[in-house]
Structures are given as structure tokens and as C-alpha cells.
């Protein structure tokens, strides 16, 4: 049995599974990084992902086009985040409570719409999910190639987004604006940056990522919508943002650790190895709590996070 674990097939398969399981987390984490860098903690993420998962599935099923489903999920993610922007940015309500409210509302709404559409069938409707594609040459590299370069196109897309988000945040004027709004909104306002608009645009962009992350679950990872399809992955993404110190690349490392543990426990279970897999799945949360201790020392959290910006209350 130990031989099975160290076999080439097992390791290649595990690498592939890690990449797959990390994909929705990467999308959501990148979305949350952008949002939090501008000073807004979006706890609506879990519900936004579920709405994305449901909408993506519904549109793909009815239109026959998986990509149309993905696009619809992105749009719905944007709408949910726009609602968050109204509450937390323009009205300046508590970001925690607004976010949780949106998650609650979106979760209820996703289930409501799904039930409305399909009732409660004994066999849930399914779509033909995305097929994995192989990148020529690279996918024939021994061990690694099969795992890394034979993936869903959405996984490749997620990996493409990591450097893009990184570069935009750290190397462009737009990124500088976003980070200033997140660190010191008063300074940003002084130099003529529209704080609330910047935050709204970041929320909306992040929401699109979260929606797509949700759609990955129903259109690639699985081929149906289940009520617990997101299953806390949104919260994991929030945790990974902290774990990664609000940096897209470091956050990806966190997402990969989560993907690895998730993939490993599934594989060991399938091989009939009795392990308390719950203890496995607990690890990312524990690591993040430990990371939180480090973060509180280093103070790398965006200084303007959680604080609504009201010009007239400067210094108040």
C-alpha cells in the first residue's frame, strides 16, 4: 500500500488534484485580495460564490454553453458585490455585518432560485462539464506534465490571473491608487482619487472572480449544483488572504496547501485507507489562525481595512 502512495501515477494524480482543488480558492482569494487591498473586507464571498455556482450552472444548462455560464456567474458576482458596495462603502455600514448579511441573503436566494427552477428532483440535473485540455509538449513531461499541464481551461485562466493581479497591484498606477485607498483614504482623497468609486470598482472586480470561482465548482469540478457545493471555500479564501499577507502570490501558496490536503484526503479515502480525514481538512484553518498571530505582529493588514470613508469625519 505504501508502494501505491509513492507510485508515479499516484503522485501525478495528486499534483493534478491539488491544482484542481486550489482553482476555486485561487479565484476567490484573488478577488478578496483586490477588495481588501482597497480597504473593504468582503464576507459576502461565500454567498457570492454560491450565487456564481448556481447561476453558472443554470445558464449553462439552459443555453448549452458552458462559457456563457461562466460569464453569467461573473456578472452575478459583480451584482452581489455592488450591493456590498452600497452597504459598506456608500452607506458606511459595518463591513462584517454587511458581508455576512449578503452571504445569508445570497445563500437563501441561490437555493430559492434553484428550487424554483428544478423543484426537488430525485436525480439532480447535470451538465456536460468542461473537459480537461492538454498543453502540447509540456503535458508530456514525466510526472509533473500530466498533473500540471492537463487541466481545465479555467484552472489555466486562474494561474494566468495570479501574475496579472500581482503586476496590476504593485507595478501600475491603478494598483498604487488601490493600495493608497486601502492604506490611507484621506491621503488618496487629497491627491484627487475618488475613494468610494475605487473601492466599488475593486469590489465589483473581486466579485466577478468570486462568481467564476463558484462556477468552476458546478461546471468543471462537478457537473451539478448541490446546496453545499461551495462548502466553506469562500471562508477558506478569506483565510488564505490573511495567510498570504494580502499578497496574491503568497495567497496562492496557501490555496495550494489547501488543495493538496483536500486532494490527498480524497485519494487516500478512495484507496480505502482509513484516516480521520476531518483532521486533515482542519489543518488549513489552524495554519491560518497561526498565521493571524504573525500578521498581528507585522501589521501588514491594509490600514484602512474595515473603516468606511467619510470625508467630513476626517480625524474623527
Amino acid at each position, binding site marked *: 500500500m505504501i508502494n501505491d502512495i509513492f507510485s508515479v501515477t499516484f503522485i501525478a494524480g495528486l499534483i493534478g488534484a491539488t491544482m484542481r482543488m486550489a482553482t476555486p480558492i485561487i479565484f476567490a482569494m484573488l478577488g478578496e485580495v483586490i477588495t481588501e487591498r482597497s480597504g473593504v473586507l468582503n464576507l459576502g464571498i461565500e454567498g457570492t460564490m454560491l450565487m456564481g455556482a448556481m447561476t453558472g450552472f443554470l445558464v449553462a444548462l439552459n443555453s448549452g454553453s458552458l462559457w456563457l455560464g461562466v460569464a453569467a456567474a461573473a456578472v452575478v458576482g459583480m451584482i452581489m458585490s455592488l450591493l456590498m458596495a452600497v452597504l459598506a462603502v456608500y*452607506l*458606511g455600514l459595518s463591513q462584517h455585518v454587511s458581508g455576512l448579511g449578503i452571504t445569508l441573503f445570497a445563500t*437563501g436566494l441561490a437555493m430559492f432560485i434553484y428550487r424554483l427552477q428544478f423543484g426537488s428532483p430525485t436525480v439532480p440535473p447535470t451538465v456536460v462539464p468542461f473537459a480537461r485540455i492538454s498543453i502540447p509538449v509540456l503535458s508530456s513531461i514525466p510526472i509533473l506534465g500530466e498533473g500540471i499541464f492537463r487541466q481545465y481551461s479555467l484552472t489555466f485562466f486562474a494561474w494566468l490571473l495570479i501574475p496579472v493581479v500581482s503586476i496590476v497591484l504593485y507595478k501600475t498606477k491603478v494598483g498604487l491608487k488601490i493600495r493608497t485607498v486601502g492604506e490611507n483614504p484621506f491621503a488618496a482623497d487629497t491627491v484627487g482619487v475618488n475613494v468610494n468609486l475605487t473601492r466599488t470598482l475593486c469590489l465589483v472586480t473581486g466579485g466577478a472572480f468570486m462568481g467564476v470561482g463558484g462556477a468552476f465548482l458546478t461546471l468543471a469540478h462537478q457537473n451539478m449544483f448541490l446546496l453545499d457545493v461551495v462548502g466553506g471555500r469562500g471562508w477558506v479564501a478569506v483565510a488564505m488572504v*490573511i495567510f498570504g499577507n494580502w499578497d496574491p502570490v503568497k495567497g496562492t501558496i496557501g490555496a495550494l496547501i489547501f488543495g493538496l490536503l483536500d486532494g490527498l484526503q480524497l485519494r487516500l479515502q478512495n484507496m480505502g485507507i482509513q484516516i480521520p480525514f*476531518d483532521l486533515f481538512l482542519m489543518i488549513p484553518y489552524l495554519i491560518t*489562525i497561526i498565521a493571524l498571530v504573525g500578521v498581528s505582529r507585522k501589521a501588514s493588514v491594509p490600514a484602512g481595512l474595515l473603516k468606511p470613508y467619510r470625508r467630513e469625519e476626517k480625524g474623527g
Partner: protein
Amino acid sequence: MRIQLTKRQPLPTWSRIAIPVGAIVTTLILAAIPILAAGGNLWKSYYALFYGALGTRFNILETFVKSSPLMFTGLAVAFAFRAKFWNIGAEGQLLAGAIVATWIGVYAVGVPSIILLPTIMIGGFLAGGSWAVVPALLKTRLKVDDVVSTLLLNFVMAHIMGALLFGPLQKPDASWPISEQIVEAARYPILLAKSRFHLGIPLAFLAVLVVWFINTKTVFGFRAKAVGVNIKAAHFGGINTTSVIIKTALISGGLAGLAGVGEVAAIQYHLLSDISPGYGYTGIVIAMLGNLHPVGVMFSAIFFSIINVGSQTMSRMTGVPSYISGVMEGMALIVMLVFLLMNEYKIRVVRK
């Protein structure tokens, strides 16, 4: 065009009642949109909703049954939020209480009820309480953000429960994650015949009274409020803020733990992985809707229970999916937040 907020004079006391009532009415009006979208007749739907929750003796008692865990988690969150301990972790604390209640309840064979019932209650209270003290210690000693730590600990506890339900607590011949039944003596007595009206319900109302008493009549309640209003000022005023936050966490988590005890000892009689349909998270909404006041929490818990129980009947009679209750709960929270803001600020849309 932009939204302008200006502080206003505090509204008179009647607004403290008018605001939640207004929020509930607004929610019922807004909920007409999804009901109509689902093809439901508006009057018939609302009639079914209220008939299902309050129409018969059994329905009313069932609404009370469902309100008990919500009252406990709502109180738990409200009590913590009042001292600005952002306890998002009532769900995990509830599970901790349920696990300990099950553990004691399964193994305490032969122990009389009079000893066993207080034991599982205290055990569940302490389990939930100590699980909440963990993030309180992280907050006070290591300055770890309590929102995120309490949230994450929910998942840690859910997985601890999963590991136990597939391990030492699993019923020997079961392939599902389910525990053995707890012994008869560990079960909450049913207080009214032909119903599920159990001991946990008067207990929840008692908890409302106790929290109200702590908040308004004790030195601790005063200190907790001071910490909530301005922790620095409280500290300079000579209050041991660390101690206040930890005690607040203990009581808050304990209340959530009691919700878990009730679900095991009065409803399910064993532990299973979906022992709570998110009562801990709903508790946050209930606390906000109740404006963090124990009596407010009591009423909003009953309101949510009406929606939950009534939506089942509405679903049967009109075909509107029962998930409407989740939609309405989310709406209620968002509406309440906006209403609370209007209490403090004038909101104007101005053209620049």
C-alpha cells in the same frame, strides 16, 4: 451624484421599537418580490406563512420549539457584540456544546435525571464558553482579529465533530456520521402534552432575563458596556478590559453551547453532522435585528422562527420554495442595518 450622510439628533425612545418593527414590515413588503416571482398568490402566501406558524396550538408550540436555539445564539452574539467582542463563532460554540452533551448523555448510564440534566447543561455551557475563550485570549494577548479567528474556529470545531462522529462517538454499526442515542435521563422533559414543547424553551426565556439582568443591574454589565463603547477610556478608567472580554466570551460561548445542548437533548437525541442548520450564523442576524438588546433578541428570534416554521406551510400550500425563509432573513438584516443607520444619520442623495 453622491450619497451624503449627516449626523442627526438622536431620535426619541419610541424609535427603538419603531425601527425593528419598520424593518420587519419592510422585509415583508420586499419579500413579495420573490414570492410573486415564484408565482405565489401574495395574500394566500402570507396567510399560509402566518397560519403555519401561529394557526393552531401545535403550530404555535412548534414555533416556540424552533425559537429556542435561535434565542440562545442570538443572545450569545448580542452579549459579545455589546462589549465589541466580535463573536462570529456561535456556530462552533453551539457544536462544542452539542458534542459534550452527547458525550455525557451517551455514557452516563444509570445516572438519575436530576443530576444528569444539570450536568449536561453545565458541561455544554462550559464547552461552548471555553471554545469562545480561545479567540478572546488570542485577541487580548496576541491582538489577533476576533472576527476572522472566531469564524475560522467554527470550521475547526465542525471538523473536530466530524472526526468524532467517524471515530469514538460513532454508533458502532453505523456507516453514517451519527452517534448513539443519549440515555432517557439526559433528555429534556416535554412540558406540554402532544407537542415538542420542552424544557429548553422556558430556559431560553430565562436566559433572556438573566442577560438583561447582567446588562443592566450588575457592575460587570456596566463594565462590558464601557469596554464596548470605548476600550481605551475603559482601560484608563481602571477597568481590567482583558478580564471583561474573556468573561464576556465565556458567557457568550456558553449561551451558544446551550443551544447545542438543547438540539441534542430535546430534538435529535443523538449527534449528527447537520445538528445545526446554521443557527450560529442566524444568531448574528437576530442579534442585529434585536439591536443587541435581550428583549429585542427574544422578539427577533420569535419572528425568525415564525418565518422558518411558516415557510414550510407556505411551501406546501403555494409551491413557493421554503428557502424563501433564508432570503427573508438576509433581507431583514440588510434592511435593519439601513434603518439603524437612518436612526443616526440623515441620508441624502446630492448632485455634485
